[in-house]
């Protein structure tokens, strides 16, 4: 989608973004929705306050519509906001966001008729951690990131580097299963470039699977030693919509509120089980973790697990029953005595 927006002609940082045709179309449509009173709010993305960042824009103000952007840094899964915003909402949705929206509808957290989905095609988002690594510089020291169809130009400290796009996209984007929303009310009709690398997408999971159970446990034990229990993973996750998380329960206390690796690990294990069939592999949990725990290696494994065992793909069909409300007469054979 945005590929053509970052033309190779001259440097463009995402802070001085060209208003692309797509953005224009989006703003027009969003503006119309607000103006005609079809929706009370628009949720989308605006430029962030720091380089290469965007920030969620939740507004009822038509003047703010011109801040709506589409670029390779629109990370947030905006579906998260839907259950808490009153009235009718127009939401800008990438494929993965649309799946979360559908999942929330399946779980009755939102009503389809209250949501206007403005679908945008997505070719993948840039993982700044990967870019930083490639450039050997931190985000604020990078001058420019130009995304072309199959390669990316990174300029930092006067040095220009060209790498395949697959090396800078988020792991979950490399395994994307829905680039263009299936469920939408308005769709920006642009093709999305298919940039995929399934192997890298679940590389860490495959490596973990090669280990012995003890090694795997040791790995996660180490990882959850870092956890600070800030709950950003939970808070950013659209599938986590419980009014009260089980960690907050005190009778009984399932998980100690004290941050110790055992309970940190149990928290995340249960959270992952709880979002089984709701997780769309949007990768937000891993992105927001301030201590870099590879959380997607948990959620993606669960995503694949329910896919394989129950042939279940989250958020693809508004009318499908939620995973845990359905069953087949014969399933999971061989796992139960």
């Amino acid at each position: 989608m945005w590929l053509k927006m970052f033309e190779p002609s001259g440097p463009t940082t995402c802070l001085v973004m060209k208003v692309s045709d797509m953005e224009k179309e989006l703003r027009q449509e969003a503006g119309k929705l607000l103006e005609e009173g079809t929706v009370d709010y628009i949720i989308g993305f605006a430029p962030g306050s720091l380089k290469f960042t965007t920030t969620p824009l939740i507004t009822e103000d038509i003047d703010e519509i011109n801040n709506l952007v589409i670029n390779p840094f629109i990370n947030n899964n905006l579906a998260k906001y839907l259950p808490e915003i009153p009235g009718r909402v127009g939401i800008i949705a990438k494929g993965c966001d649309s799946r979360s929206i559908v999942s929330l509808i399946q779980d009755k957290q939102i009503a389809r008729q209250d949501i206007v989905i403005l679908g945008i095609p997505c070719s993948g988002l840039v993982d700044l951690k990967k870019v930083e690594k490639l450039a050997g510089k931190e985000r604020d020291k990078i001058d420019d990131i130009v995304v072309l169809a199959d390669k990316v130009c990174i300029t930092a400290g006067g040095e220009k580097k060209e790498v395949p796009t697959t090396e800078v996209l988020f792991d979950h984007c490399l395994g994307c299963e829905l680039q263009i929303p299936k469920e939408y009310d308005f769709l920006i009709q642009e093709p999305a470039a298919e940039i995929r690398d399934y192997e890298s997408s679940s590389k860490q999971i495959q490596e973990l699977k090669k280990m012995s159970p003890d090694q795997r446990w040791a790995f996660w034990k180490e990882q959850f030693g870092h956890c600070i229990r800030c709950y950003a993973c939970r808070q950013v996750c659209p599938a986590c919509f419980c009014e009260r998380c089980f960690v907050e329960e005190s009778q009984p206390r399932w998980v100690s509120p004290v941050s110790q690796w055992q309970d940190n690990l149990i928290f995340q294990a249960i959270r992952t089980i709880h979002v089984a069939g709701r997780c769309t592999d949007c990768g937000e949990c891993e992105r927001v973790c301030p201590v870099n725990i590879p959380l997607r290696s948990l959620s993606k494994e669960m995503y694949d697990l329910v896919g394989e065992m129950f042939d279940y793909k989250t958020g693809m069909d508004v009318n499908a029953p939620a995973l845990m409300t359905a069953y087949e007469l014969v399933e999971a054979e061989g796992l139960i005595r």
Partner: protein
Amino acid sequence: MITKKINKKDIRKLLGTWNQECSVIVPTREQGIVEMAGWDNKDISFLDWYRNTVVPPKACFLPQSEVMISFQKKENGLKIEVPQDEHKQIIFGIRPCDARAVAIIDQVFADTYDDYYYSSKRRNTLLIGLSCSNPYDSCFCTSTDVNPTESEDVDLMFMDIGDEYVIEEITSGGKALLNTSSMIKKATKADINKAKEVRAASVDKLKKKVDTKDVDRKLQSCFNDIDYWEQVSAKCISCGICTFLCPTCFCFDINDEMIKKHGARYRGWDSCSFRSYTKMPMENPREEKWRRVRQRVCHKFEFYPMNLGINACTGCGRCIRLCPVNWDITQVIAGLPGEISVHSGK
């Protein structure tokens, strides 16, 4: 006042000397996460890459979780033990913004109220500041009355002037650390001049600015401007990143844990961003997100100045840089109804 200096080559030796008498804590990096941790007695590469930690130094005195008492159920009641920790430590490399933060938390835990667990660690710790000449684009310390190269909140202040560090001796404890070492030289006039240039240049690098004058008054006046708070809090997801990683946030929660007959009372970080933070049996005074967001802003910029005469924000920028949704406190301050301007370092 700059009085001493040391060649960069000698830092390892200096730390080595200190490390024999107490534990030396330096910036370390593991899995991409920078925090203050025990020095391994050899690696000083952090001098090259270190900008600031992700986990603020407050964790050295107020850890994420710590045991307050441990107990054991015996036939005739509980046997209770309180952990003792009087070991001495030196934190090397604390930035002026974080040093200010420690001073701020000191006022809470080691002033009129003396918190045993905090102050037993704090009083056994010396802080060695390190000037900052490579700020993030999220840093705005000059707006919160912090100079990135100066600090009165440390025991010694080191400043990078090229091949050498010039040193300010702030406290007697700090001074004492230098006495024993032969690597410490006297700073020359040229060094001091160089330092002045560096200082000016460093301050100049901070492009992000926000006018914090009268913020407390403005916050007071717009405390009940619910529209404003609802609007600015809309995108907040109520996670604990900004508070847990804020160098001045100190809220904690106490929990007892018991498995079979052994148990402990733990204290751990808590966050006013969490909805459950103020949850009480019948009601929650901060049920709505905007109340929690307002609390955080007001705590930093209104209640602190009112009670202690100082802003509780030191401009370290962690909460902006690490926020999952790019919630920027400077924008919120700047946007307060009233005339305060913001300069962005874009």
